[in-house]
């Protein structure tokens, strides 16, 4: 179903506001701090919603629905295990060092804590990664808009790039953050009625679960495999993800999740823009509240789509097939939009999708222009220029970053394999990161040489583990096993989790070993950067319910209840 006038008008209203916000904010952009850090003036709830939206890009929304169809309710492990605990840890334990050290970026914290080379390694790999991620996101959007609106790939890519460029160029990080808040509400208001209609059509949660038993038994799993989270995780062969509880908890819940939420500047930047230390600490905790409910908005649609497709002869709709005959799970949300929404709501639903694409892209671009300007340009190319010079550099970097993303989108369109290889490479680089931050923040003896050696060997360990293992049923090559085959995993996901566990462990051990044989930094240089040398924050002036530890405990308790409810 292609959009009609009313749908176009709704999309138009959204674009007017997105650009209008950028235009209104342009006169506040006077210093580089205004541009890259929103002048550290954002209220906690705004920063919190932006923290969430920046991560809610294309792959997130489309991919989580696809996983919901493929693996069922267990996909919510990516939220309740793989996000919330790490977000709480960031707010309660790590934010005091990020915000308190006055670092302007995550790589800059590494420079303050360790040394120049550790920062350089992190800054360059991060900057490259953000540009390509934003390109991949743009590529996914191009394909989807082609399907939904009938736009051709070029129009989609250039139009969305132009809009994001305009609002970031004008209003910097503030513009990105404000638009992310708009996007957050659009996604909630656009998808909530979709889930309501889908569930109502299938007879509520009960009706959905009943239909999902057909999906599960048809593939040889226990009947509740699609509607439960933990009950089938005892063994990797009894659930469609092909992972067991230990891999989920350690690989996803600990290494991957903490590595992303606690060290990725894309999200941490939103908290750094908050107006005070307490607001910065509350940012990820506020974000955690809607985050724990997002499985119902993005995963349940996938479950509805698969339940609807497999049980024929009833109400609902059928997902289209891919060229190889399997169901195209990526179309879960677009198919539901066009099945359940009349014109009017269809416009709102498409706007919500567009919003999620643009927020993901803008998040990458604002993180890129900051790291480029502060950690690469100011550090290695042109030191000691005026603040105005760096402000302008930020604008140039925005244009440059978006241009590179567009190029990456075209590369992805032509050579899918190159993008798969790049994503694999990023996974290797990211996997060990959390070990470096954990030791840096909580062990004063960790040294720069240790951190650098740990990062390199962790990345090498990830690559080596990948080279020696393979998911069953895959060919050696991009999926692994390109040196020789030592071990097979039941699924690609299990292999990813264990790659991360190995990378983290090797980085952790090597960092400790090298630190012990290298000269430590004097303790006075580490005040404010390491836990044991930093005076405890006084929280007495905050109401008890606003204290990060209390909020964090509440968030964790609620997450635990959700896990038990959907056990």
């Amino acid at each position, binding site marked *: 179903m292609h959009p009609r006038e009313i749908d176009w008008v709704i999309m138009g*209203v959204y674009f007017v*506001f997105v650009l209008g916000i950028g235009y209104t904010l342009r006169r506040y952009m006077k210093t580089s701090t*205004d541009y890259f850090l929103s002048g550290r003036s954002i209220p906690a709830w705004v920063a919190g919603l932006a923290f969430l939206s920046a991560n809610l890009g294309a792959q997130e929304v489309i991919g989580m629905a696809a996983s919901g169809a493929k693996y069922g309710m267990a996909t919510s492990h990516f939220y309740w295990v793989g996000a919330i605990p790490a977000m709480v840890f960031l707010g309660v334990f790590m934010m005091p060092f990020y915000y308190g050290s006055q670092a302007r970026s995550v790589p800059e914290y590494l420079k303050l804590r360790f040394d120049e080379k550790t920062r350089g390694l992190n800054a360059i790999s991060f900057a490259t990664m953000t540009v390509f991620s934003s390109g991949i996101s743009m590529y996914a959007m191009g394909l989807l808009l082609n399907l939904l609106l009938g736009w051709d790939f070029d129009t989609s890519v250039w139009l969305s790039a132009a809009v994001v460029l305009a609002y970031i160029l004008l209003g910097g990080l503030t513009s990105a953050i*404000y638009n992310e808040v708009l996007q957050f509400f659009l996604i909630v208001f656009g998808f909530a009625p979709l889930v309501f209609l889908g569930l109502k059509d299938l007879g509520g949660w009960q009706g959905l679960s009943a239909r999902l038993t057909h999906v599960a038994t048809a593939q040889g799993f226990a009947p509740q495999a699609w509607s439960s989270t933990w009950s089938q995780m005892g063994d990797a062969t009894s659930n469609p993800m092909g992972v067991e509880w230990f891999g989920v908890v350690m690989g996803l819940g600990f290494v991957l999740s903490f590595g992303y939420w606690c060290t990725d500047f894309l999200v941490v930047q939103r908290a750094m823009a908050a107006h005070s230390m307490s607001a910065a600490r509350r940012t990820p905790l506020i974000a955690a509240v809607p985050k724990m409910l997002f499985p119902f908005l993005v995963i349940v649609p996938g479950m509805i789509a698969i339940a609807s497709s497999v049980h024929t002869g009833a109400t609902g709709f059928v997902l289209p097939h891919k060229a190889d005959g399997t169901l195209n799970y990526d179309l879960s949300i677009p198919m539901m939009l066009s099945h359940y*929404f009349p014109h*009017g709501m269809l416009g*709102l639903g498409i706007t919500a999708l567009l919003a999620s694409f643009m927020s993901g892209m803008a998040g990458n671009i604002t993180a890129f222009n900051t790291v480029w300007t502060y950690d690469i340009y100011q550090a290695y190319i042109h030191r000691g220029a005026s603040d105005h010079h760096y402000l302008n550099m930020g604008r140039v970097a925005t244009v440059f970053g978006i241009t590179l993303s567009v190029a990456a989108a075209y590369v992805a369109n032509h050579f899918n394999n190159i993008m798969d290889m790049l994503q694999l490479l990023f996974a290797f680089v990211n996997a060990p990161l959390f070990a470096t931050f954990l030791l840096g923040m909580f062990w004063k003896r960790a040294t720069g040489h240790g951190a650098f050696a740990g990062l390199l060997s962790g990345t090498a360990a990830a690559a080596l583990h990948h080279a020696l293992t393979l998911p069953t049923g895959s060919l050696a090559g991009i999926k692994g096993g390109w040196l020789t085959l030592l071990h097979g995993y039941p699924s690609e996901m299990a292999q990813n989790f264990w790659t991360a566990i190995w990378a983290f462990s090797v980085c952790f051990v090597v960092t400790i070993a090298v630190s012990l044989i290298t000269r430590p930094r004097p303790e006075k240089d580490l005040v404010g950067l390491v836990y044991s040398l930093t005076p405890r924050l006084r929280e007495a002036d905050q109401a008890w319910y606003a204290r990060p530890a209390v909020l964090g405990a509440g968030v964790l308790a609620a997450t635990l209840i959700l896990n038990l409810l959907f056990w």
Partner: protein
Amino acid sequence: MGLDIRIPLGMMFTILGCLLAGFGFFSDPAIYQRSLGIDVNLWWGLVLLVFGALMLWLGWRAAAGRTH
């Protein structure tokens, strides 16, 4: 930072709410077959309208508080 996000947020959802509810009120009921017979445009438009108005009220109240 100068601009209170609740104002544009409220304005946008008020406009979207009016558009959807208005369209839902005047549109042919036959198009709601796909949404299980529910006029989602009207009902959800009203929800958006209430949310938009609430945001505007909060934003204006805060602005009034700053000037006094």
